[in-house]
């Protein structure tokens, strides 16, 4: 992602505020994985991993890894009390049926209507969609964590996605190193800016039509 640990954690910390007691949450690879570390211990959440576990816990201590117990990113995990294992059909049955309250994923582009592109750059990088189509299309709330601009400095928040879509009109919230934005019926709304960035900075780096919210909080 080309951003420092502090910035990644800042984005993850802000995303963690969206996670409330009792929710079922699926975290994608990259910055989303960090979100779990920022959820307060008194909030009871079940993390779902699409490789077949509900109730993932913190990373194990070095030397205590179990090769048969990993998350969808292939990293060793632990489980919490009340966890369960299941096969991939059941893992995605839960997703398609709408049991995932929040999914937090990375993205290549997000449009102002919430279209998500995050699985293919034709001719360049073709990793495949994995479980992203199901998660983006079926989770009750979709939060994207990403850089505000790409390596060329171009806005990743666009009027219309130029890359093939993962899911149409699926994203609810975008959190970048610069801002927090929500996709609403009234359009894309700027809700918060991350200091030291200003509203003007965010507007200048956003290609999409971005409406300034009634109150825009600044996150220190």
């Amino acid at each position, binding site marked *: 992602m080309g951003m420092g640990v502090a910035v990644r954690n800042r984005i993850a910390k802000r995303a963690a505020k969206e996670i409330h007691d009792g929710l079922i949450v699926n975290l994608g690879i990259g910055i989303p994985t960090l979100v779990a570390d920022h959820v307060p211990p008194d909030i009871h959440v079940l993390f779902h991993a699409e490789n*077949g576990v509900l109730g993932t816990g913190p990373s194990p201590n070095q030397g205590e890894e179990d090769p048969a117990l990993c998350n*969808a990113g*292939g990293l060793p995990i632990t489980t919490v009390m009340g966890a369960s294992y299941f096969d991939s059909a059941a893992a995605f049955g839960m997703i*398609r049926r709408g049991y995932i309250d929040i999914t937090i994923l990375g993205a290549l582009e997000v449009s102002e209507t919430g279209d998500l592109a995050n699985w293919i750059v034709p001719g360049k990088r073709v990793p495949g*969609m994995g479980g992203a*189509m199901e998660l983006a299309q079926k989770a009750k709330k979709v939060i994207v964590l990403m850089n505000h601009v790409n390596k060329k400095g171009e806005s990743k928040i666009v009027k219309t996605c130029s890359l093939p879509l993962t899911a149409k009109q699926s994203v609810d919230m975008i959190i970048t190193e610069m801002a927090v934005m929500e996709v609403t019926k009234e359009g894309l709304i700027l809700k918060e800016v991350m200091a030291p960035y200003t509203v003007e900075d965010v507007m200048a780096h956003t290609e999409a039509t971005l409406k300034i919210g009634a109150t825009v909080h600044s996150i220190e």
Partner: protein
Amino acid sequence: MRQVISKKNKVVTLEEAIEYITDGCTLMYGGFGGVGTPPTLIQGILDKGVKDLTLIGNDTGFPDIGIGRLVTLERARKVIASHIGSNPNAGRLMTEGRLEVEFSPQGTLAERVRAGGVGLGGIFVDVGIGTIAEEGKNNIIIDGKAYLAETALTAEVSIVYAKKADPLGNLVYDKTARNFNPLVAMAGAITIAEVEEIVPVGALDPECIATPGIYVDMVIPTKGVNWKWAWE
């Protein structure tokens, strides 16, 4: 037709099992990023020199992990998977036109394999509508809602990895090493299970058996994982 060596004792040697995996065959495999992919069978396929495989499974592992070892050494001509990103060789071979890749969303892929394994022709699913994932698929309206018709998948040979088996082929899995394995086990015309431990008939709690032995034709003991995990 299922070919069964013996219905009462399905335990065979690696060599006996590998006989059934031949050039050009369709091979379905369990595993997720190599977790739950049978290492000894993969090694046996490599050693035998089997080529031109059509592989069906969740992902292409890592370059030196799981099914990725077969992909890296160009033993496959086609892969049907949801993700190839963790094995850059797969992407490179695809770009060079040396490996055909068919992508299926992960949950859809799981259900296509399950459908094949339970005798269905396919499934109706709305995932991927409005994306390039719907290209070439029939649309169908059921009760006013749009779905894609996705075809079932079966294989000439399925290879799976389990924690325990008995001689009847009943299988118990281990945590997230289960993943696609129970689905893949059902979808092979011949299914070979590689397991950590073979126990006597009656030693497995019937409540815990995730794959009934009816789906399993051969059982081999594993020699253990012969690759290093990415996190090690």
